């Protein structure tokens, strides 16, 4: 029977990263995925830590991490591995021709589709909103027929940011010519801007307005191929800045990052098995020797020395709670931590500055990211837990989702 060095389950940011790190070490790696992974729903920027446990803005993620509670995954991963994962990611994106910027000691402000600025640690140049502060005029570019991107709302909210209050604002509309069929998405416009004709049409609109000191704010439409479109556009607009916002899915930047990661993994000889739902682990005591998957009409088993679990949380099906207070990890049945008591489970004020109890649900691990039970005993010697499978953090509240995914995957890949 064929045996692989490492099997990674799940193809979101954590799964793909763990697969690449493992493959870079010369291992034979198989990645099993059911569904296309969450990157098409993910901004693709790396928030390491935006807010602390009191929801105060964190100016330096490196500092903020050190004040987190002991059961937070970052405390298990450790500052060194987190810093190394950031360096790894910056190097990887550089090598793959779609460089990210940022560092662990500061935040980049990324504009959102409603005109707020969200703090993130690593982002590609096209999403770096710090340029807005340095400009005197902000030109918001809406796209004809594109829903969920409204120039006046963006302007109103940007004006609420102290440093952007006194800028001059202008709204212009880009007609991509894609209307007339169904509703268009940012992905449709981005694919159009991958073409020479699309880029030329956008340049024709922006060039007359593109003076020194102007920043354009656009939805996430600047091509699907890394930073190719953003670079070409900037080259043709002189010294004006061009900044994209995060948008509703499909997320173009998430897809750019997904392409980069999948490409890097395949270059390293990694294999992705699609439509492959992992049903259970094959355990010999505390050692996992294989996993059983459901293929069409029959089950198929895959064997390896090491396993990395990156199947996500409730949304992705990695965690489930069919009965209240009985959370499950759906493949291995690992112990799952949760906050007991119905009254602590959720905060009815969805958009308040208070955390959600349920968000802490997940697997607790030792310092090597192996799953532990309530008494801290490791329950699987060669299975490593990464990304949203981990418990003890509220990624929405603290803005740490992709940071935990990246750092845990980096560490697990290196174990």
């Amino acid at each position, binding site marked *: *029977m*064929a045996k692989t060095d490492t099997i990674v389950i799940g193809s979101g940011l954590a799964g793909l990263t763990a697969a690449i790190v493992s493959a870079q070490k010369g291992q034979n790696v198989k990645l099993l995925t*059911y*569904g*296309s*992974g*969450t990157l*098409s*729903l993910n901004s693709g920027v790396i928030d390491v830590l935006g807010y602390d446990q009191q929801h105060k803005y964190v100016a330096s993620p490196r500092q903020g991490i050190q004040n987190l509670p002991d059961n937070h995954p970052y405390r298990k991963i450790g500052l060194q591995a987190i810093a190394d994962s950031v360096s790894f990611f910056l190097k990887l994106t550089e090598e793959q021709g779609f460089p990210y910027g940022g560092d662990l000691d500061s935040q980049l402000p990324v504009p959102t589709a409603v005109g707020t600025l969200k703090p993130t640690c690593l982002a590609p140049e096209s999403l770096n909103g710090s340029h807005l502060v340095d400009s005197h005029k902000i030109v918001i570019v809406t796209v004809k027929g594109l829903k969920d991107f409204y120039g006046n709302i963006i302007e109103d909210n940007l004006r609420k940011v102290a440093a952007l209050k006194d800028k001059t604002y202008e709204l212009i509309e880009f007609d991509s010519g*894609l209307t*007339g*069929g*169904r509703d*268009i*998405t940012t*992905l*449709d416009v981005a*694919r159009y801007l991958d073409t020479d004709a699309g880029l030329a049409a956008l340049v024709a609109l922006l060039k007359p307005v593109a003076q020194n000191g102007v920043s354009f704010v656009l939805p996430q439409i600047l091509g699907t191929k890394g930073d190719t479109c953003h670079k070409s556009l900037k080259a043709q607009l002189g010294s004006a800045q061009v900044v994209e916002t995060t948008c509703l*899915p*499909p997320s173009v930047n998430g*897809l750019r990052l997904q392409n980069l990661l999948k490409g890097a993994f*395949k270059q390293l000889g990694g*294999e992705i*098995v*699609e*439509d*492959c*739902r992992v049903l259970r682990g094959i355990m010999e005591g505390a050692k996992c020797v294989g996993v059983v*998957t*459901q*293929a*069409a*009409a*029959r089950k*198929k088993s895959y064997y390896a020395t090491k396993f990395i679990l990156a199947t996500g949380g409730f*949304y*992705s*099906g990695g965690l489930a709670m069919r009965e209240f207070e009985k959370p499950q990890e759906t493949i291995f049945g690992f112990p799952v931590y949760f906050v007991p008591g119905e009254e602590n489970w959720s905060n009815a004020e969805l958009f308040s500055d208070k955390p959600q109890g349920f968000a802490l649900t997940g697997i607790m691990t030792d310092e090597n990211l192996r799953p532990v039970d309530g008494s801290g005993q490791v329950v699987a010697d060669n299975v490593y837990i990464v990304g949203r499978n981990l418990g003890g953090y509220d990624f929405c509240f603290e803005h740490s989702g992709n940071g935990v995914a990246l750092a845990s995957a980096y560490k697990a890949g290196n174990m």
Partner: protein
Amino acid sequence: MSDTKIKQIAPEEAAVFTADHCLSCTSCMSSCPVMEATKEYRGPKLVGPAHSRMHFSQEDEEDSLDFCSNCKSCDRACPSGVAVSTLNMLQRGEYYKTHAHSQRDEMLAHGEKMGKLVHSLPLGATCANIGMRIGKALGIFGLFGLAVERDMPSYAASTFKSLYKNISQKKSDKKVVFFPGCFINDNEPSVGEAMVKVMQVNGYEVLLDDKFCCCGSPMVVTGYIDEAKEHADRNVERILYWKNQGVPVVAACTSCSLMLKKEYEELFNEAKMKQAAANVYDLFEFLDILADKGELNTNFQSVSAKLTYHVPCHLKAQGFGVPAASILRDVPGVTVELADAGCCGMSGNYGFKGDKYDISMKIGEKLFSRIKEQAADSVICDCGTCRLQIRHGTQAKACHPVEILAKAY
């Protein structure tokens, strides 16, 4: 028909109810090749799960349903197990219960009938091939609504079923029944011959069963759902017969194998289809299982071939990986590079439709340029209509991976 109630698949496992698992996350939209090629298709999320829920409760038609090619990229993208494309095909079947079919669809759905007719006449294949060339030159295909830019697949001089009779096989206790499907039987019987050779070298005797009929895939995608169900019933009965004899059924066309293994039960929801599916294998899936057990004959001769592998969508949807790549990589002299360029755009008979030709070619662009870049000796692909599209879009040679493997023995 017996009056015993037909045993259905449990509701929690039935594809038809998976619409309610849709979270509207848009993963399918990012992966849909038709959405990328045209703005007229509203996309898998809205047409599949969202609209099918409306449809089953009231009369309501979705105009852009016609654009779905049933390539199943959406099903693969879905993290929640929604059988998106099957929901589309069920709606299409429902639509054609009250609407007339075009002559074109009548023709595209019934390739098996045409093949039988052609091969029953003396010199039928030659005459039909000449006839198709003349028909194309006179623009008759266009009048029928077929893509004038394409050649219809030419008929082989002899069907696989007739060639099979002349193959002398070593008898064996280990047997498989081959499900050749229409395309291998009528158009590319060499794939079947290679399959028999490979199975023989691996100690298996290959049987044929004349009672098998077209898997029904061309009917499902053109909305002849009741007829497809009749085919499903006939094939399932035979598969279960062979299952009782302990003889597995093996198909070498991934659209056939997907239909037998997965789409029957998704579309028609009967427990017997699930039972039958367990006895059906795609060819390289079967060889992979042999390899896993250490039973694959790996006494390979060297074959000098640089190959580009276009993995068909309908193979990816079977969830067993891409075993042909790893098996062929063990043949000395063979290199296999995955094209990794998405759907080819042909999707069964979709690309033959005149009004879908441009979409089909636009979808295929990525694959065509990848094939040209890689400049391999041959493209390999387990799906017959993908191979037609590859030849049409690139002029490259395209064969089934088993034809390469056969050379290694």
